[in-house]
Every structure is written in C-alpha cells, then in structure tokens.
C-alpha cells in the first residue's frame, strides 16, 4: 500500500499534541502532511513558529494553488477553508463556517478523500467539538486509513469520540503510538 498524503484535524489541546507529534517525526519523513488546526479568525498562525522550534520537519502555511509536495507539512490559514483538488493542488475558500469552524476539518478531509481515495491517511486528534467526524467517514468510504487519538489520553476527548461514532477507526492510539505507526507506514511506503 502506497500512501500519498496524511491529513490531520486537531482543535482544543492541539498545540501540545502537535508539539509532541512533530518533535518525534524524523526530518526524513516523506509523506506530505496537511493540518487543519482550529484557531481564531484573526490568528496570524504564529503558533507555527512555536511548533517549528522543536520540530524536525518544518511546518508552513499553505499558499493558494500550490502543489502538494513530498516531505512538506502544510497548515491551513486562519479564516479560510482548505481543499485539495484532484490534481493535488490546494485551493482556499471563504465559504460559510462548517461545524462553527473555518478552516473546517470536514472540508479538508472530504476533498482530500476524493482526491487521494485509498491512498490517504486521516488522523483526528484532541478537540472539543465534532468537526472531522464526517470527514473521516468519507475517508473510510474511499478506502483510506482512519486513525483516532485515544479518547482516554487525548487532552479533550469530544472530537476523537465523535470520529469513533461515525467510523470504525483502523487505529485508536495514544499520541506517541500514532507517531510509531506513521513512521512504520512510511517505511512500508518506501519499501514498496
């Protein structure tokens, strides 16, 4: 199995979760990662710099129309929805909020599912809302892999629980184990 992209949805508690995640992923990690973090509409995404101080991979805000490239980590800009097109480029919209959120995890996940089909990994981390639950369902329908942070260990369990309610996740794991899984999946990717 060859995975072409990873989408991550994270909300309340996300700063810590992403710090852990990106401090542990190696700089050689090649599968592109695309993140929606719920954040205030006026945020200038300065938190990216904060994560980058300890991350081996460098996170960057998505630029409209750019192509998804190997080894990159992309973050949705505040106050815009982020979508993946069939040709694996990004588009931004200021459509209505979805689940009270813009960017919305569902919007990213549903478009990425259509673009990557069974070559997509969708991950739901900590958060106190239901965004992402419809998105992982769509990923699963297309045959992609669904991973949810263990509600027992997540800083805020509502979002993982909502995702579990709509799908049968392939993996429910604490954060550190998610890192191990991703590293292993990437190894399989390279081997195949």
């Amino acid at each position, binding site marked *: 199995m060859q995975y072409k992209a990873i989408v991550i949805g994270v909300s309340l508690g996300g700063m810590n979760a992403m710090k852990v995640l990106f401090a542990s992923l190696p700089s050689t990690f090649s599968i592109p990662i695309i993140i929606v973090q719920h954040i205030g509409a006026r945020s200038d995404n300065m938190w990216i710099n904060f994560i980058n101080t300890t991350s081996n991979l460098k996170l960057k805000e998505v*630029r409209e129309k750019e192509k998804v490239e190997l080894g990159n980590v992309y973050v949705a800009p505040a106050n815009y929805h982020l979508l*993946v097109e*069939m040709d694996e480029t990004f*588009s931004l*919209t200021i*459509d209505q909020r979805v689940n009270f959120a813009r960017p919305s995890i569902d919007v990213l996940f549903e*478009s990425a599912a259509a673009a990557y089909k069974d070559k997509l990994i969708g991950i739901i981390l900590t958060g106190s809302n239901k965004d992402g639950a419809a998105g992982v369902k769509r990923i699963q329908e297309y045959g992609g892999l669904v991973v949810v942070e263990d509600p027992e260990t997540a800083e805020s369990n509502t979002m993982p629980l909502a995702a579990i309610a709509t799908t049968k996740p392939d993996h429910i794991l604490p954060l550190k184990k998610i890192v191990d899984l991703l590293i292993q999946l990437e190894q399989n990717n390279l081997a195949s």
Partner: protein
Amino acid sequence: MTPHKDNLDIEISLLLDAIYQKHGYDFRQYSQAHIARRVNNRMLITGLKNVTEVHAKVLHDETFAAELLRDLSITVTEMFRDPEFYKSLREKVIPILKTYPFIKIWHAGCSTGEEAYSMSIILKEEGLYDRATIYATDFNQQALNRAKQGIFSNELMKEYTLNYQLSGGKESFSKYYTSSYDNVIMHQSLGKNIVWANHNLVTDSVFAEVQMIFCRNVLIYFDRNLQNKVHSLFNASLIKGGILCLGSKESLRFNNAHTTYNELDSKHKIFKKKY
C-alpha cells in the same frame, strides 16, 4: 493509456457544461473541489441522489437552477475585513489617490457591498469622497440588490465596529448607520457615489478605466488559467501607476501578471502597476 476520470468528475464537468449552455454562467474553470462541495450541499438539501439528477433539474427547473447558481457564488464578506489591510491602504494608498483630480475605483466581486461601504467611509474621512466614483460589481444580482439597500444585520455591527477601529478609523462607527430593530441601515450619503452593476468577470469584458481595483477573495475560486484571464482584464482596466488590491492569501506569484506590478505592501497584497 487513455485519460480516465472519476464518474463524479465527469458528472460535474457535464453539469457545468449544462449550466453554461443553459444559463450563461461559466464555472468550468472554478476550483472543482469547491464546486463539488456546493453541488453536494444542494443535493443533501433537496434529497437528490446523484449529480445526474442535479443535471436534469438544472435544465428543467428554473427555481432549482437559480438556487444552485446562488450556491455557487459564495458571498461571505465583512466590513473592514482584514483591518490591517485597510490601515495600510490609508497609509500607503490614500496619499497616491490624493494626487488625482478624479478617482475611479472598481470593486470586482463586491458581494453584498460591505467592502464598497468600507471604502466610502475611508474616502470620506480622507476628504476624497467628492471626487470619487466607486463601481461595485458582482455577477450575483441578489447580492447586488442587498448591497444597494445597505441594510446589514445588527449582530454583525460589533465585529464591524472592532474591524473599523483596528483599521485606523477616526470616528465613532455608529455615526455611519441608523439602527432599526434587528438591522442597521448605512447612511444614504455613503452610497451616493457608488454605482452598483452586474458584471461577470469570466464572461463580460473590460468594465471601465480606473485608478484602483479591489478584487479580494474572488480569484481564489478560479483556476490558474482563469486567474490569468481575469488579470489581463484588470490590466486593461487599470491606469499606469494604478493600484490593485487582492485578498490576504492571494498573490501574483503564479500569474503572468506579476511582471506588471510592483509590490506596495507584500503582506497585505497591495500592488502598483508599473509605468
């Protein structure tokens, strides 16, 4: 190998052909992920099972077609959206506009008018309103009708007031509108020099010769080819030394237009056309 597309892709592309042939609106070069999302939304609301059913309804049901066309035009906007942008506009662009005896400004994709009213307010505060004409255009007639009325929901005013203040507003924002029940109505004088007009950036031609163009958060919906096409339209409409303002996440990086302009403010996407 023959190129082969998803069924969904094919259905959407046939649907967009039908919309164009039947209704004259050309969405074929819009972000397809966005279009798919809007179509899907309409299917959920109306209980249609697939895009082929949408296709049939678009041809035979005028009410449905009108609804879908409205869905495809996203009118989300704000007064003084991105206050820092307006602050920069006051500081860097107004002095340039002051050098012209007459100022024509084109707001392309003005939606329900919030941006045009914001501009009116700035022009008033800078003493430029009487020599200015604002052409505010959109292809969504319903949005234009609302814009003309200048009626906005009361709930929004708290946010708009904050935006106004952060943008360097000089007055008390409430000076510019009258409240009635759930709504506010913008003062008539603000609309005096605004010309509201229906214009489609994809299918209509050059609109007027202007000193400044605002086109914020519209081109993000277009693919690169269409962006290029619209940029040539802007280039043909903007005088040399004129100002182009894009949305905060838009740039000229991928467009042929980048050689036409100098950056006046790279963070806030304000460009000045070269001489």
